[in-house]
C-alpha cells in the first residue's frame, strides 16, 4: 500500500468504456421510456374519467413509495418468471428503471400540463380540435418546453441511480470498475476514478441545464 498506480485505469480502458456504454444506454433508454410512459400516466392522472385517474394515481403513489433498489431486485426475479425464460440482466433493470422513473416523470409532466393556461386548451377546443388533438398540438408542446430543465435534471439523477444495478451484478460502469479494482487490488485508484467520472458528467450536465434554463428565460 501507499504507492498508487493509476496505470490500471489506462490498461483497462476498453473494459471500463464498455461499462460506461451500458450505463449511458440504460440512462438514455430508461429516460425515453420513462418520459413516454410518464406522459401517458400524467394524461390519465388529469383525466376526468375517474377510474383512469385512480389507476394512474395509484401507480404513481405505489412506485414513489418504494425504494428503487427493491424495484430493481423485484424485476430481476419477476421478469424471467413472467416470461417463462431468463432475460438478460440489462432488460430486467431497464424495465425496472422505466417503470420506476415513469412515476416521477408523470408528476413532473402533470405539473407542466397544469402550468399551461386553461385558456389555451379552451381556445383549441373552440376551434373544433378534439381533446386529444388539443393536448397533442397545443398543450403538450408548451408543457414540454417549460419542463425541459426539470426533465433533464431528473435524467441526471437517473444517471447516478443506474449505479444501483450493482445489486444484480449488471456490468455497468461502476461494476466494471469494481471488478478490476478487486482483481488488480487497486481499490483506491479505481473508486477515485469512478467518483471523478460521475462528478464530471453529472456536474457538467447540470451546468448545461442551467445554461439552457437561462437562455430559455431570455
Amino acid at each position: 500500500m501507499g504507492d498508487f498506480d493509476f496505470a490500471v485505469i489506462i490498461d483497462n480502458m476498453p473494459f471500463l468504456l464498455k461499462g460506461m456504454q451500458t450505463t449511458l444506454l440504460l440512462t438514455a433508454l430508461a429516460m425515453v421510456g420513462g418520459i413516454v410512459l410518464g406522459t401517458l400516466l400524467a394524461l390519465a392522472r388529469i383525466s376526468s374519467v375517474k377510474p383512469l385517474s385512480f389507476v394512474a394515481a395509484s401507480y404513481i403513489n405505489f412506485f414513489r413509495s418504494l425504494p428503487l433498489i427493491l424495484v430493481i431486485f423485484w424485476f430481476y426475479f419477476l421478469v424471467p418468471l413472467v416470461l417463462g425464460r431468463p432475460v438478460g440482466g440489462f432488460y430486467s433493470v431497464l424495465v425496472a428503471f422505466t417503470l420506476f422513473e415513469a412515476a416521477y416523470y408523470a408528476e413532473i409532466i402533470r405539473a407542466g400540463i397544469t402550468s399551461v393556461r386553461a385558456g389555451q386548451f379552451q381556445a383549441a377546443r373552440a376551434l373544433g380540435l378534439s381533446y386529444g388533438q388539443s393536448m397533442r398540438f397545443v398543450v403538450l408542446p408548451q408543457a414540454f418546453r417549460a419542463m425541459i430543465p426539470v426533465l433533464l435534471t431528473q435524467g441526471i439523477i437517473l444517471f447516478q441511480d443506474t449505479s444501483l444495478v450493482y445489486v444484480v451484478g449488471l456490468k455497468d460502469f461502476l461494476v466494471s470498475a469494481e471488478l478490476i479494482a478487486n482483481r488488480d487490488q487497486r481499490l483506491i485508484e479505481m473508486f477515485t476514478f469512478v467518483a471523478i467520472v460521475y462528478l464530471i458528467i453529472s456536474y457538467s450536465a447540470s451546468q448545461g441545464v442551467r445554461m439552457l434554463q437561462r437562455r430559455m428565460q431570455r
Partner: protein
Amino acid sequence: MITFENVNKYYGDFQVLKDCSTHVNAKEVVVVCGPSGSGKSTLIKCVNGLEPFQSGKITVNNVSLGDKNTDQNKLRARIGMVFQNFELFPHLSVVQNICLAQEKVLNRSPSESVERAHALLERVGLLNQAEKFPSQLSGGQQQRVAIARGLAMDPVVMLFDEPTSALDPEMINEVLDVMVQLANDGMTMMVVTHEMGFAKRVADRVIFMDEGHIVEDEKTDVFFSNPGSDRAKDFLSKILNH
C-alpha cells in the same frame, strides 16, 4: 341562428345563469353587457359548449348543443370564438396559428390553409406579420390574428368574449375596426363588451345581464334611449358618464 331556451347553469350551489332565453338571428349583431359576475361571459361560452349547462336548451343552426348525436367538435369548428386574452398558441407562428385547425379539423391541405390564412391576414391588415410569433406582436395585433384564426374555419357565427378588455387604450380601435368591418360584411356576431360606442354603432340588439338574469333584451336605440329597468339605467349611467 342561435336560440337559448331557459338555460340554467350552476357552479356547485351557485347559480350563474338563471332561466336565460334569447336568440340571435342570422346576420345579426348582438351585444351582451352587464356588471362583472353577471354571467355574460358564461352565457356565450355555453354556445360552443366550453361551459356545460345543467338545464335548458341551446341550438345553433337548429343543431342542439346538448344532444348526444351532435358532433360537438364539428359544431364548435363552425362557431368562431375570440377570447379576452387572445389565447394565440405561443409556440406556433402567426400563420401556423391560423392553419392548425384548418388542417386538423377541416382536413384542408397545407397549401390551401396557408392561402386562406394569408387572405385573412390581409383582411385584418397583418399580412406582413405572418411569420412572426405571437409574443412579437402587440396586443391589438394578437387579437386581430385571433379573429383571423376564428374566421379561417368559415364560422356561421362569431363569439367575442370581452375582446378589448385586455388591451391598452390605444389598441382598442384597431380591433373594433376589424369587428365593425366584419359586422358590415354580414357576419352573425355575439359580443360581450363594455364598449358602448361599438354597441351603438353596429349592434342590432343589446342584452343586459345582471346576477345571472337576462334583464333587458332590446333593440339598440331603445336600450340606450329608454332602458326598461332601473338596473340597466344605473349601469348605463356609470359606464357612459366618463
